[in-house]
């Protein structure tokens, strides 16, 4: 059977859209539903909330959804009117703008942390002040060894204690273990999906799942919804392979580390124009994580330290180069597209290090695209297309 181009409004795409909508609807409905809402830095495990039947809200991720819908500017402008500089990361600024404009669900508590950046950490302080709600800072180490895991386990224990005291509730150990069990299963399924993406040609489309691989595990970790999502994606991938309905590919790409919402159209264009498929993203890569429901907080500590995008910005950049090595080898990457988000020192400062690594160890070329992750005022899509054309002409 000849391969046809699976539509981007495929089953995966539709379910993902519903998935995201439900996730954020639960946050906006939390108060009416009598549930506590916790604003969280996107590094932190959602399982902490689900263990307490609370609802997590990740403002930077909501900022991304708003960017995709073309409505993020009001948050950015609110933050800039308050005094935040134009050059600051738009993800951070969108979170600040939400708090300042009051157009986001009000938190009952705030959990913050220091990775990936100072801005992300400080903005959660602003949120806590703005809403006059309790705030707890989780100190995340960058070492993934025994000491690092033990330390973070203690920090997460402190966070749970803070939440139970703030909410006047009791933690159910059984519920916590159940949540971690669900989280573990979602991680396993995510690994299975990523194994399927190693196939040549890769059965999933760039745009279809871009940025979605990490979402369920990161923000709905500990829920049945995340498990159902990954199971569905794996099923779709297997079916396409079985039916031979997989889009042809000439170039296998790694996209790093993030994609701006306004660049999504580029992904499909890459597939159609150059047969260049994004077979892995830095945020979509799932390392194998040892999780044991009998040791729930230790499991969450391990997961947090291996977290997807944030782990790339935690600690010295050189520690994260191994992940590039693994992906390039495991997914047989031909080229890397690296989006250098202007507002992010972490991302921009790693450009040379990553580029040199790819060239010296793998002879894999890397295209650097400049722009802003959310801000539509700083996203020259046509310029990016021109750079992509030059890049692929170079590869030919």
């Amino acid at each position: 059977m000849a391969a046809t181009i699976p539509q981007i409004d495929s089953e995966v795409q539709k379910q993902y859209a519903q998935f995201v909508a439900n996730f954020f609807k639960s946050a906006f409905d939390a108060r009416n539903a009598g549930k506590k809402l916790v604003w969280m830095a996107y590094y932190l495990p959602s399982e902490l909330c689900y263990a307490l039947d609370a609802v997590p809200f990740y403002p930077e991720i909501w900022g991304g959804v708003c960017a995709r819908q073309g409505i993020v500017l009001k948050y950015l402008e609110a933050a800039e009117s308050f005094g935040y500089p134009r050059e600051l990361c738009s993800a951070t600024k969108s979170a600040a703008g939400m708090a300042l404009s009051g157009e986001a669900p009000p938190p009952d508590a705030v959990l913050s942390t220091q990775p990936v950046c100072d801005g992300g950490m400080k903005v959660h302080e602003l949120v806590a002040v703005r809403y006059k709600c309790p705030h707890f800072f989780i100190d995340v180490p960058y070492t993934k060894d025994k000491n690092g895991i033990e330390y973070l386990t203690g920090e997460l224990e402190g966070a749970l204690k803070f939440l139970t005291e703030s909410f006047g509730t009791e933690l159910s150990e059984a519920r916590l273990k159940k949540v971690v069990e669900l989280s573990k299963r979602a991680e396993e399924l995510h690994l299975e999906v990523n194994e399927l993406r190693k196939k040549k040609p890769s059965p999933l489309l760039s745009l279809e799942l871009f940025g979605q691989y990490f979402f369920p595990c990161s923000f709905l970790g500990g829920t049945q919804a995340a498990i159902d999502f990954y199971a569905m994606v794996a099923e779709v991938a297997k079916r396409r392979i079985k039916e031979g309905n997989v889009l042809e590919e000439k170039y296998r790409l790694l996209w790093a580390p993030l994609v701006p919402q306004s660049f999504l159209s580029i992904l499909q264009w890459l597939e159609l124009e150059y047969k260049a498929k994004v077979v892995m993203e830095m945020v979509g890569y799932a390392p194998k994580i040892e999780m044991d429901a009998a040791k729930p907080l230790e499991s969450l500590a391990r997961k947090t330290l291996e977290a997807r995008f944030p782990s790339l910005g935690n600690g010295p950049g050189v520690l994260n180069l191994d992940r590039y090595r693994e992906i390039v080898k495991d997914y047989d990457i031909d080229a890397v597209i690296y989006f250098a988000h202007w507002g992010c020192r972490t991302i921009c400062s790693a450009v040379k290090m990553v580029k040199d690594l790819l060239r010296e160890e793998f002879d894999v070329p890397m295209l650097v695209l400049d722009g802003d992750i959310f801000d539509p005022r700083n996203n020259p899509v046509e310029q990016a297309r021109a750079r992509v054309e030059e890049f692929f002409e170079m590869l030919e």
Partner: protein
Amino acid sequence: MLVAGVDVGSLTVKAVILKDGEVAATTTLITGDDAATAARTAINEALKSLAERGVSATLDSLDYVVATGVGRKEVAFAHEVKTDVRCDAVGARHLFPSVRTVVDIGAESCKVIRLSKKGRVEDFTANDKCASGTGMFLDTLAKVIGVGVEKLGELSLKAKEPAKISSMCVVFAESEVISYIHKKTPVEDIIAGVHESISNRIFGMMNRVGIEKDVALVGGVARNVGVVRALEARAGENILVPEAPQIAGALGAALIAAKACEGGA
């Protein structure tokens, strides 16, 4: 065999006609607001000069046309379009076979391209964030200084103490230049300062892709000897500049067209 390369830039359109692999005619015109018409006119002008030397041809009779430049996609009559990066590389390499680093400074863009020993494009970078380091930057500041852009190069060579232009943004650089004018700073020093500012910006881009000898400078700004000298001083390298640097991209396009005719594109 008659082929053409046409480089549709933001300010000028350049055409090169090759006859049996040799440059037979070239033209440079203002692009204006209609890239397609400008490209057609540029080739027709080149063909006209060719006719004066007894070679009669029309655009339709050309064996192959390759378009490049920012407006390349508007050139409907082209058989093929190629990016500036590829065409600059091919053109510069043809002019200087030893070249490994090509710097192209056009009206609104600047690019640095690194080539392999065999001339294959290995890496490149372009100015995506601002107009500093481009012809437009020079043009704007020349107007403020009150000197024709074509005179900037020679004047800057007379500078004794180049002014410090620290702003990368053309608007802020303009303010700096105005303040130097108010301080009665010699105009030669101001211009040299502007050239140094551009060379600093380009040098950073060169380092980003890695400098390999030899280095060639192409694009319209390469006609400014002041920029060439400033870049040589900054990079510590001798920089090769072709006689007509602005047509290097169109030449590359024409060479690609010739190769396509030979069946080797």
